[in-house]
């Protein structure tokens, strides 16, 4: 195998890495916003369970949580760990069609669920911090001008929250890029898994180190984009 075929092979794995990253980001942000509202609710019947849930999810390793999502439904269904309902699901993702194994698609769903819930919990705490840091005076200024609660949130508070949370969120987003490697715990052929497979089948170790280039380029690109966002919001102080 030459450099070029190995690069192609790794690119396929990287496609899955990117897919997991993007899908998690798209789904975890709104879910995190929902969690943050629930954790700030005045009703303790909503607030307390949400905070306990966030404590549990943030308290257990993501890898463990992936196993829980993957195995628990089948264990509960018929107590048989050998059979797994996720393995019967075909999402028809064509990103790695060359891959001989199609069974990873259902497992991808399991990993995605675990990632989305896990990251929604982390995001929700960032959102909560951001929302609570906006001074009460901003809300009151909106209310005395006859604005509704949702107008105050969307027209006044939200942009100030975004400005404040971008640095913390950037950190979490960059961590997410690298956490996608945990998907190989249940044999999702993301980039690290591809490289590891090569190490065992071709007796090549350097592709494993080569994966770092993909991560570095991706994180570099994200850093540029996130800095741009920060710069765009620097025209005001809040």
């Amino acid at each position: 195998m030459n450099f070029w075929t190995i690069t192609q092979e790794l690119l396929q794995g990287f496609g899955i890495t990117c897919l997991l990253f993007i899908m998690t980001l798209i789904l975890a942000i709104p879910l995190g916003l929902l969690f943050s509202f629930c954790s700030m609710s005045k009703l303790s019947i909503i607030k307390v369970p949400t905070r306990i849930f966030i404590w549990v999810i943030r308290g257990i390793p993501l890898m463990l949580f992936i196993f829980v999502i993957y195995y628990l439904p089948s264990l509960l269904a018929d107590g048989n760990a050998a059979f797994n309902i996720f393995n019967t699901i075909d999402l028809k993702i064509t990103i790695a069609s060359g891959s001989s194994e199609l069974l990873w698609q259902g497992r991808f769903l399991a990993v995605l669920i675990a990632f989305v819930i896990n990251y929604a919990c982390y995001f929700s705490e960032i959102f909560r911090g951001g929302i609570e840091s906006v001074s009460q005076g901003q809300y009151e200024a909106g209310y005395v001008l006859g604005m509704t609660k949702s107008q105050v949130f969307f027209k006044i508070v939200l942009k100030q929250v975004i400005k404040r949370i971008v640095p913390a969120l950037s950190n979490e987003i960059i961590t997410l890029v690298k956490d996608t490697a945990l998907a190989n715990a249940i044999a999702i052929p993301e980039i690290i898994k591809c490289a590891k497979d090569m190490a065992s089948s071709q007796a090549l170790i350097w592709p494993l180190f080569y994966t770092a280039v993909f991560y570095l380029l991706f994180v570099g690109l994200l850093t540029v984009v996130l800095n741009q966002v920060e710069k765009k919001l620097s025209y005001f102080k809040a």
Partner: protein
Amino acid sequence: MSLLDVRNITKSFGKTEVLKGISFSLEKGNVLSIIGSSGSGKTTLLRCLNFLEMPDSGIIRVCDKVLFDDADKATLTDEQIRQNRLHFGLVFQNFNLFPQYNVLENVCLAPKLQAKALPNYKTDAKQILADIEEKARHLIDEVGLSAKCNAYPCELSGGQQQRVAIARALALNPEILFFDEPTSALDPELTGEILRVIKGLATKNMTMVIVTHEMQFARDVSDQVIFMDDGHIVEQGTPAQVFDNTQNERTKAFLARFNEG
């Protein structure tokens, strides 16, 4: 008939009684100053009148329309509270401008959101928005900041920010404008420019309620002065009555300390 009529407002936070039955009324075009030491309940009174706090009991009327009556407090909806607030404008001690909007946008934001509820908004949106903007520019000009329309709050001095806040409050045509210690966050030089703006409004017969520690200003601008102490109104009258012919011992002691300084 008075424009604002407040009857027996009380408010407690936990076991602390902050307002112990406040009653007063205000005629259209008059200026009322509320003075008193910190913690006497002045700010809480303003916040109750603007529904930022819900009074425990009492009645608030504007032009004979009951905005608040403790008898049917439980049925007061968010929408009614919002409508009630539109009778009033409030200028805060620390301005509370919206930092992400420039001066013009700060003044226009609320009127533009209000306009969306107009029946003819869909057809005449362009004209309506243009009118709002023109009016906003006029108000900004009146507070002397027409050169700063595109500046953001962080680029303005405290005095300029407070003048924008006044223009912003006026943009919704409130029947009564409330000021909560509008100059307390400003140095003496900047205080002057705010007081001039408020005096300007007084000459245009704007009905105003001003909580202030500027005694000389209160004396000059007010038609009526209230001295509050420990949740009560202990003295009330024209500036001449309150400042020159003080009856209450507590008021005398308070004013004496000011005259020393």
